């Protein structure tokens, strides 16, 4: 077995393309050996990060591409998501504070969970803005279980 596998995918930053891209990446990562117990965490965080690009980075401007580069190591997975949209507010990773549930049904939040989920499910998050490009790196650790 290889110690390192790569998976790359690039698609237009639209909701439909993102939906198909997330599904394709998820299947590809499992085929490359992502441990099944980690697959759900990765898919949730990956989907939220890609949806953020579609909904926010390219908000109000012509959507270009989302590029996803995955490197699967024996004990961890690195995912780099790049786009040429607007930078993250303040040029930094937003905090992962969950939206408060409120005290009645009317007050229940219908959004604001994305960054909270990404923080919850990743081991490390890094963001870099350079040359008009956003680069968000997500790392998922999965210490080897003895079989």
């Amino acid at each position: 077995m290889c110690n390192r596998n790569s998976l790359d995918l690039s698609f237009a930053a639209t909701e439909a393309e993102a939906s198909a891209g997330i599904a394709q990446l998820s299947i590809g990562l499992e085929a490359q050996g992502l441990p099944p117990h980690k697959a759900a965490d990765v898919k949730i965080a990956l989907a939220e990060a890609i949806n953020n690009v579609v909904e926010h980075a390219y908000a109000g401007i012509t959507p270009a591409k989302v590029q996803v580069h995955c490197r699967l190591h024996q004990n961890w997975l690195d995912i780099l998501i790049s786009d040429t949209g607007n930078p993250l507010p303040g040029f930094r990773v937003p905090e992962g504070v969950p939206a408060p549930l409120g005290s009645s049904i009317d007050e229940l939040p219908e959004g604001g969970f994305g960054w909270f989920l990404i923080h919850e499910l990743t081991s490390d998050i890094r963001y870099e803005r350079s040359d008009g490009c956003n680069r968000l790196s997500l790392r998922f650790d999965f210490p080897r279980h003895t079989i």
Partner: protein
Amino acid sequence: MALTSTTKDATQIIKVHSDRIDAAMAIQFKEDMRNEAEGGAERVVLDLSGVEFIDSSGLGAIVASMKQLGSDRRLDLAGLHPFVEKVFRLTRMDTVFKLYPTLDDALAPSAK
């Protein structure tokens, strides 16, 4: 987004015929839920047994669906895949909705 609806006793059952509820279909889902639930029974059970993936936009659409039912009706959820249940648990939405492992559980006399 295909939804079908049946009524059993005093419960309207709406089944989702899609393997995912995500950002690409959240708005459509909310609209379809509004149409499907209109004039239905007081209690609505959403059968999610065919749904294998949900993101926070899909979750938001289910929350919005509950809100648009108004205060006289309620929305319970049945048949959640482990993946879908995890998203509800992480966001603590499992404390807001009643979740049933299967549709049969949701329709058992003790569940009403």
